[in-house]
């Protein structure tokens, strides 16, 4: 059994008739594994066991949380190009189909000569869905050859006005065909982006793309997002929404000195002076190297 015969000056005197009475200093020593007051050797051993080094079982399951991290990080990156929040409308998905379909049936047909093969294929691939969709019609009126790029505005005439705009369209609702058509358009756009005007993607196709993306100036970001999102295979499912507590103890950037005596029991120097643990799974950081000493037998 350990005796603590050097009581600090500031500690409160325990009542002399109580053999198990504790003062604050003794409690701190006990909790940190630095020593057990009379009558507390068993408690000291128990606390030492409570902070014994981690077991392999306790360190299983890292893969799951890393998958979560990947998913969240990816979501965050996708959302990174700051855009004003737009309402997410289910109709948007339909609109995508309509626009791309319209491009296939109308405008693009006239401009086919300018279109690279992928875009033509893309157009073809969405013919079905587009016709099935109840088109509001105006898509057809988009004058094929006359629209010019760079005419600006998120709402070019014709089909664009019928589009519930926004890059955050519910792409899943657009169906795989329309989605891949958009991807093709985007690829064509990106490939031709640094070529001369109208290089890879002609004015009309660009306009359609702009309409879906929500504006000429959004095409780039839209395509980046779309292609990036689809390049990465389906990630883990969206985790259920849960907000961590809002105020994460802001501004506690103080000195990393005081993890508190309880963290480094036994005075083994494990906590503060330990070399940086390698991030390898085999190197399991001990919670308390000095655990076995704490009881101080």
């Amino acid at each position, binding site marked *: 059994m350990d005796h603590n015969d050097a009581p600090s000056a500031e500690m409160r005197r325990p009542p002399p008739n109580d053999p198990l009475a504790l003062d604050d200093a003794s409690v701190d020593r006990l909790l940190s594994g630095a020593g057990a007051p009379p009558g507390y050797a*068993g408690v000291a051993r128990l606390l030492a066991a409570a902070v014994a080094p981690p077991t392999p079982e306790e360190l299983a*399951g890292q893969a799951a949380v890393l998958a979560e991290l990947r998913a969240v*990080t990816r979501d965050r990156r996708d959302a990174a190009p700051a855009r004003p929040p737009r309402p997410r409308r289910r109709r948007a998905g339909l609109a995508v189909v309509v626009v791309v379909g319209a491009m296939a049936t109308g405008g693009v047909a006239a401009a086919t000569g300018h279109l690279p093969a992928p875009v033509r294929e893309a157009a073809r691939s969405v013919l079905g869905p587009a016709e099935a969709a109840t088109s509001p019609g105006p898509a057809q009126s988009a004058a094929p050859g006359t629209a010019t790029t760079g005419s600006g505005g998120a709402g070019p005439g014709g089909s664009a006005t019928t589009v519930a705009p926004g890059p955050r369209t519910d792409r899943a609702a657009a169906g795989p065909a329309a989605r891949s058509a958009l991807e093709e358009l985007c690829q064509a756009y990106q490939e031709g982006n640094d070529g001369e005007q109208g290089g890879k993607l002609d004015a009309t196709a660009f306009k359609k793309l702009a309409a879906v993306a929500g504006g000429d100036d959004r095409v780039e970001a839209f395509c980046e997002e779309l292609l990036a999102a689809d390049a990465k295979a389906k990630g883990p499912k969206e985790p259920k929404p849960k907000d*961590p507590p809002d105020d994460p103890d802001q501004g*506690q950037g103080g000195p990393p000195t005081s993890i508190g005596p309880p963290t480094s029991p036994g005075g083994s120097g494990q906590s503060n002076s330990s070399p940086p643990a390698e991030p390898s799974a085999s190197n399991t*950081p001990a919670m308390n190297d000095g655990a076995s000493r704490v009881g101080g037998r």
Partner: protein
Amino acid sequence: MIGPEFPAVLAAAAAGDEDAFGRLWRDLQPRLLRYFAVAAPPAADDLASETWLGVVRGLDRFQGGEPAFRAWVFTIARHEVLDLRRRAARRAAEDLPVNGIVEQAAPDDPAADAIEGFSTRAALAEVATLPADQAEAIVLRVVAGLEVQRVAEIMGKRPGTVRVLTHRGLRRLAERLGGANGGFRRVV
């Protein structure tokens, strides 16, 4: 504990670096599991997962040093416990079986513990027999390694109250365990 490298590790983890995040995880996951082993034993794994979900989602907004980070993680952890208790209470009120909170498990084999010393599990189970506040105060101080002030914030109590809870819990353990030879004298 990660130490001086913590700010760099945290920043990397917040940016999605898996090695860095793994270090945070390996440091805190065992502590979380042990906290839950006392606060909500049967649900420890689930609650730990939920806690990390909260950590992952809030990581890029967190600011502070390592002690603050620990306190933040355990704040989330405690919310999980409270949520679980609320759900359990609701189920109980609806007269359905309660899955979340079960009576505390008894230590495995007290006789063996007396001879060989405690296993971690037995030690936590013993702490878990204390009144909930006392057990929580002790575990947050010892296992989570938090100072009184932070424990008080996490538990929503005054520091003085946390001290009293800790004293009482330790004392109760001492009465049960005895001190002379460190044995584990409880008869089951």
